[in-house]
């Protein structure tokens, strides 16, 4: 029982980690609190649903949904935030603008697609499962963990070992100095928007698969959870976001299994409050360190 709960928790946690990764990237590099991030999560799930409904296999629906969600993120970032960045508006301004935009987008999505919960077509995933000793792990769960691991490794090596990744980290620290090095910071920002939107969209598809429930407002609760995770992990800290995502997933599963599923959603925030009392920089943050 305990082992199975932990496995289920790690599966959900790896999707959380992926979601948090995109959020911490956006926050760390772009330096704005962008609440539309949860919208990309919902967009990703719906796009995969549409693609699957049209007969696309998951191997096509998932990447397609992620890429399109990334493009939506680039467009929304450009429309909402370009002006604010140019005038170096305070963070509260970006918070309010993106909050307003998000409420509008969720409403528009509900009006367009209906607000009822939708499900992926039966047979999208193989129903099989593997036995690991006494535990079982389904094909869907393997897909979730595999995708999350692959995308996280991809992002980590992009940030650590490529010229673009180097420029992203430089931009996270000091936008003026990056420009002086010859970095076209606007172009790098577009790439970061794309990547984070795509990660958020992919996470939406995976969570949609895990719970088989897709609704326009699914991104709203997830955004709050995402912020809790990246604060736990230390803002802008990629490894921290991954670890905190897994941790929250496991704690949720254990809470649902041993206490009550009523408290499941609260456990991440409880952990957040307890952590901030003891370590204001988050579990994995360095004191005084800012971003990325």
């Amino acid at each position, binding site marked *: 029982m305990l082992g199975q709960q932990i496995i289920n928790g790690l599966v959900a946690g790896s999707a959380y980690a992926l979601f948090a990764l995109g959020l911490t990237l956006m926050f760390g590099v772009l330096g704005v609190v962008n609440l539309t991030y949860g919208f990309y999560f919902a967009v990703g799930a719906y796009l995969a649903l549409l693609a699957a409904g049209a007969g696309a296999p998951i191997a096509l629906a998932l990447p397609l949904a992620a890429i399109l969600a990334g493009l939506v993120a680039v467009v929304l970032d450009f429309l909402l935030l370009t002006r604010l960045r140019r005038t170096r508006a305070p963070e509260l301004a970006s918070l309010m603008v993106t909050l307003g935009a998000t409420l509008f987008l969720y409403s528009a999505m509900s009006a367009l697609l209906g607000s009822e919960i939708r499900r992926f077509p039966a047979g999208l995933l193989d129903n099989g499962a593997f036995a690991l000793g006494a535990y079982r792990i389904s094909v869907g769960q393997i897909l979730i963990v595999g995708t999350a691991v692959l995308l996280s490794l991809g992002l980590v090596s992009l940030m650590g070992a490529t010229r673009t990744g180097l420029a992203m*980290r430089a931009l996270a*620290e000091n936008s003026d*100095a990056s*420009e*002086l090095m010859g*970095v076209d910071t606007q172009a790098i920002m577009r790439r970061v928007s794309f990547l984070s939107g795509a990660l958020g969209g992919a996470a939406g598809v995976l969570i949609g698969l895990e719970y088989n429930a897709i609704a326009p407002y699914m991104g709203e609760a997830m955004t709050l959870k995402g912020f809790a995770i990246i604060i736990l992990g230390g803002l802008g800290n990629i490894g921290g976001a991954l670890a905190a995502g897994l941790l929250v997933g496991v704690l949720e599963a254990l809470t649902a299994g041993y206490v009550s599923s009523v408290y499941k959603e609260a456990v991440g925030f409880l952990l957040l409050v307890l952590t901030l009392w003891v370590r204001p920089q988050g579990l994995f943050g360095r004191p005084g360190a800012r*971003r*990325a």
Partner: protein
Amino acid sequence: MSMNGALLEVRGLELGYGRSTVVEGLDLSVPEGAIVCLIGANGAGKTTVLRGLSGLIRARRGAVLFERTDLANKPAHRIARAGIAHAPEGRQIFGEMTVSENLAMGAYLSPSKAETARRREGALARFPRLAERMRQRAGLLSGGEQQMLAIARALMADPKLLLLDEPSMGLAPLFVDEIFRAIAALKAEGRTILLVEQNAHAALELADYAYVLETGKVSIEGPGRELLARPEIADAYLGG
């Protein structure tokens, strides 16, 4: 000094922030291979001039002719691409990245890995202290080492023109000497430099030509050594 064929020729430049005008009607020229120095009191607009030249702030009026092309109002990364490297005030190194990664950022526009490696060797030969610190987080370096890194990072671009903003500010005397020796070496190699300094004496000794900035305008100009000998300069900028 208005000279035909100067590498950098600034004409009638006006710069400011918000509603305040900081620099007005600035004419200045930097010939190839020369060290030109900009001195002046705090708030005279020296840093603003460099920020304007490298594109960190937009020019309101005037021309910045670099190799006869007007760079005024081009974004900073385009100006960097044209061959101007700016080691800004306050050093502005990437503190969370390693020394090695800071140098890699300096060579962001380098055409090839071999070229980057060649420049890196040159930078480390110039500042051997950095070689011992390559894997360290740059934020952990001492102030003097950070200044060396800032200059080394700018040189990694192999610029045609190097803008140095207050390289000796806040440094221990030992480091000040080392920084000025490095600038003298760059001069000997024929690098073109526009230097902003509060240490007017050391700067004027090195400078081929100097401008004194007073509330955003050039008040006096002339060869560095000539200005050193002028009583009004000595009174105002050389501590009497």
